[in-house]
């Protein structure tokens, strides 16, 4: 049986986390979390991660692990020191799934429509997004690439800053804004275009650039270098080890194979 699209996305997320630094890798949601774990176990041994609560572990916690399956803690990083240790020192890379993203890389997790006083749809609130994006690298994982996520114009509320010159206060320090990759169910994108414009850098097997453009509310740059790599045997084995209960199968609709059209 071949790899699934979810597993291909996990490998692409792991690639987004690739680093030679010692920083906290935070993957919110099963695919980004497995990507962070895979990066830690393969190319990026400096990555540090928590057990999802307050302790640092040297082996990623398998999804759904309880009791003795959970690795013993090697360090301590509670929320009560998260900003001074991880976020505001720039020693972190987070991969998150915002509700909206615009062409500047600005994201929204706060609210949709209406006014600030009375939003049409209240969501979580800005959470830590404003601080994350001004201080440390960030990537995104979007399980269903669509113009409702990749919106035309600006996001309804700017929860995290991006590369929008109109949003910059003279004298402010925006030098640590560092948006890396966007992994979706269709492709991998980066911010490598002119003025950090979003480019498609690889297409998942069987996907065309036109298909991605159609599913995006703003213009994309075609910088496709090829297909997003399929997971190798070693990567698949590690993914299985990190997700023995198969949570990854429930993220993408119908859990399709990595090679579309294949059965």
């Amino acid at each position, binding site marked *: 049986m071949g790899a699934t699209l979810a597993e291909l996305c996990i490998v692409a997320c792991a690639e987004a986390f690739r680093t030679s630094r010692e920083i906290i890798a935070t993957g919110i949601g099963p695919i980004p979390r497995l990507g962070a774990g895979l990066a830690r176990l393969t190319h990026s041994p400096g990555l540090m991660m928590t*057990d*999802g*609560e*307050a*302790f640092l572990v040297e082996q990623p*916690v398998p999804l*759904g*692990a*309880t009791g003795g399956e959970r690795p013993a803690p090697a360090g301590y990083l*509670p*929320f*009560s020191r998260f*900003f001074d240790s991880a*976020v*505001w020192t720039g020693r972190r890379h987070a991969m998150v799934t915002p509700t909206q993203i615009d062409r500047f890389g*600005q994201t929204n997790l*706060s*609210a949709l429509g*209406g006014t*600030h*006083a*009375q*939003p*049409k*749809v*209240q*969501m*979580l*609130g*800005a*959470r*830590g*997004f*404003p*601080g994350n*994006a*001004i*201080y440390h690298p960030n990537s995104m994982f979007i399980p269903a690439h669509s113009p409702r996520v990749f919106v035309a114009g600006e996001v309804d*509320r*700017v*929860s*995290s*800053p*991006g590369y*929008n010159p109109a*949003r*910059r*206060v*003279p*004298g*402010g*320090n*925006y030098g*640590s*804004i560092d948006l890396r990759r966007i992994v979706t169910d269709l492709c991998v994108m980066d911010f490598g275009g002119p003025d950090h414009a979003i480019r498609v850098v690889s297409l998942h097997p069987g996907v065309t650039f036109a298909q991605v453009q159609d599913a995006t509310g703003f213009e994309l740059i075609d910088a496709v270098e090829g297909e997003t790599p399929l997971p190798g045997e070693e990567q698949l084995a590690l993914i299985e080890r990190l997700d023995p209960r198969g949570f990854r199968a429930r993220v993408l609709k119908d859990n399709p194979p990595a090679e579309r059209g294949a059965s």
Partner: protein
Amino acid sequence: MPTIDKTMDAAAVVSRLRNGMTLGIGGWGPRRKPMALVREILRSDLTDLTLVSYGGPDVGMLCAAGKVRKLVFAFVSLDEIPLEPWFRKSREAGAIEVLELDEGMFQWGLKAAAFSVPFLPTRVGLGTDLLDLGALKTVTSPYDDGEVLVAMPALKLDAALIHVHRADRRGNIQALGPDTYYDDWFAKAADECFASCEELVDAMEVSYPQDVKANLFERCFVTGVAETPGGAHPTTMPPAYGWDMGWLKKYAAAAKAPGDWNAVAEWVVSASEADYLATVGGPEGVAALPLPVF
């Protein structure tokens, strides 16, 4: 020799609060919330509050009950139920004023209040909507760098409520568990901090001297202590007990049907804390709730 005795019950804590005050509530989402004290507020006539909270069911309930004029928040969530439905209803009805912040700015504001400075500078908020929507101002560094920063205003609290594992009569508290979030800064940002506790002892040095590192902050920041076993229910209070996700799901579902706070307040709040605990198996039933797995 005069002695200090800060013990009181939950009703006495609430009697110290006033309409219109700014009230900080410790904990984080559905974790370590002083829910027995929140329920006591819900049983009282207290109203017109400005709430400052890393929001969980405390915020949802107080908003639903019409106790809140303004909310200072970075999120309101029940974790496994990501969006707090009663909070959403209040927001989507335009019923409450808000100051939306980043999680880190929020604790920075508590620290400014604790240190009695009007603001603390930060880069957080730059490039986002929070500045304009919150009327936050910037400040220019007076040094050669001339950097323009956000001036995060002090979040001065009239009172703070937190829930801890142990307290003694003098107000020495012990907060166990892997993470105490920003409870210490809530206490220091407030004119008065009231701590409910799972267990009240006469003297910490007699009962639990071996755990003294769990004394999260000093007793000079504690005005009153109230013993409320199971007092964080339905939120998680590790290592004592976990959250009651079944209860929270029922509470969340009730926001849709019947969707009317008055129709659910009876079981969400109950007439007394003893009545409430009886509906969830008593303190023993709460103590048996397993810790969540992350």
